[in-house]
């Protein structure tokens, strides 16, 4: 069964003011995949996610989602179209309860009618959130906040979830739970594009990966191939 190309980025240049952050970047994500975007700090990974989310717009090139051109769309519209970003550093709303954080996740029109359904799913994925539902979000631990951020993102009923540096500051044991949740999310038909600095873990969890350096995509392909690729072995595994 041919897989639908969900997200297609074609040769985009993106600027922060006068500084060019992305150079001729192309990337594609097919429905049902888990794709990793790997690179060091400053390689442009977050800029790419922000551009997909509409916080930035490409100066050149095109971004297509489900066949529609979304290059010039506002952030709230991107969410309505079905792409949700779980930002770096969690950025949950600290002075709101866990439940309110989740509820506000379903703010967009389409997601409101499916709120109870999605809430149930999120509580199944992360039972700890159900336990802590009336606590202020700022009282949660780092791992719990990441679960909340992910749950909040899922409440917007996305087809594609963008995850920015989910593992920052989290212990490996917590990460195991999170990656397990990602697999379950994929089982439910949601596609995932995640950004990571940790190469080994990313390649273990993804189907395909793109490697970025200084604003360009330098390598891409199936993870099995990439692991064997000389450049990757030298640069990231020190072999």
């Amino acid at each position, binding site marked *: 069964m041919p897989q639908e190309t969900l997200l297609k980025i074609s040769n985009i240049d993106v600027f922060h003011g006068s500084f060019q952050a992305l150079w001729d970047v192309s990337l594609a994500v097919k429905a049902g995949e888990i794709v990793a975007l790997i690179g060091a700090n400053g390689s442009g990974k977050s800029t790419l996610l922000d551009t997909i989310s509409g916080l930035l717009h490409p100066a050149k090139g095109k971004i297509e989602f489900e066949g529609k051109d979304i290059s010039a769309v506002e952030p*709230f519209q991107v969410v309505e179209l079905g792409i949700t970003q779980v930002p770096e550093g969690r950025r949950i709303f600290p002075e709101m309860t866990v439940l309110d954080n989740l509820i506000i996740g379903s703010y967009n029109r389409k997601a409101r009618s499916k709120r109870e359904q999605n809430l149930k799913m999120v509580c199944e994925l992360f039972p700890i959130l159900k336990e802590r539902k009336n606590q202020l979000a700022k009282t949660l631990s780092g791992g719990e906040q990441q679960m909340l951020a992910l749950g*909040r993102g899922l409440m917007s009923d996305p087809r594609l979830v963008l995850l920015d540096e989910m593992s920052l500051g989290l212990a490996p044991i917590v990460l195991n739970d999170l990656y397990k949740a990602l697999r379950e999310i994929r089982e439910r038909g949601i596609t995932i594009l995640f950004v990571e600095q940790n190469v080994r873990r990313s390649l273990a969890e993804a189907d395909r990966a793109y490697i970025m350096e200084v604003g360009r995509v330098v390598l891409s392909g199936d993870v099995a191939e990439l692991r064997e690729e000389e450049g990757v072995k030298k640069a990231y595994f020190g072999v």
Partner: protein
Amino acid sequence: MTVLADLATPIIMGIFLGGLYTLIALGLSLVFGVMKLINVAHGDWVILGSYFAYTAMTMLGIDPFLSLVMGIPLLFVIGFGVQRFLLNRAFAVSLDAALLVCFGISIIFQNFCQIIWTPFSRGLRPPYGLESFSIGGLHVPLVYLLNFIAALAVMLFLREFLRRTYLGKAINAASQDRRAAQLMGINTGRVYAFAFAIAMAFAAIAGVLLGLTFPFTPTSGVSFLIIAFGVVIVGGLGSILGTFIGGMVFGLAQTLGGHFLGAVAQMLIAYILVFVVLAVRPRGIFGR
């Protein structure tokens, strides 16, 4: 014994007056809490509300409270438009630009009011405007009690609105983390416009109560803006309860200061208090 009895009147008056000050300051506090903008035209919006009620009374014979049926939507819509089409664009340039635009609005409003209603002082004087009633032997003007009740009502409305409605939660979210709110699908431009509009609706209510309590002129807005500043500094910006406590403190400082040191010292005592709060706890009592 007499001293205590003597104090009872300024204390009650101070608390009730505090209600008016809370009401005036709520709009200022809301706008700052949500978009970090100090709306230096806020006092002028309130006075605009006073003048609207005045016109409704003198030209159409409508009771000031009843005129709010028109006054609230009017200021709501104008506020929405100003934020959506003017301030949003200024924000894209810088926060200072938005501040300057507010300053410009202040000048425009003052001159507009001056042209239409002349510099002579006006007041809202319905039949019940001079009524007073007794609490345990004390005579209190009815209008002062209305100030207090209105403040409680509006605060309750705001708290429930922010807690229970999607828009309220969105305003809350956008004020805590704008970027994250955008990523949740919240149209922050529109949300800011609603927040500003609500704050101006509050200004309309405050305008009616102000007009019932004090005489006003086109430039009165500035004096009440300064009072509103004092209230939110003492109580803490962005907190509803803080604004209320700040209002009470300000009202009490004024009436008790006037009681002990004479009318001339009223505002002085209040502002010395602001000074002390700034020195000791700049965040304000409940500030975040």
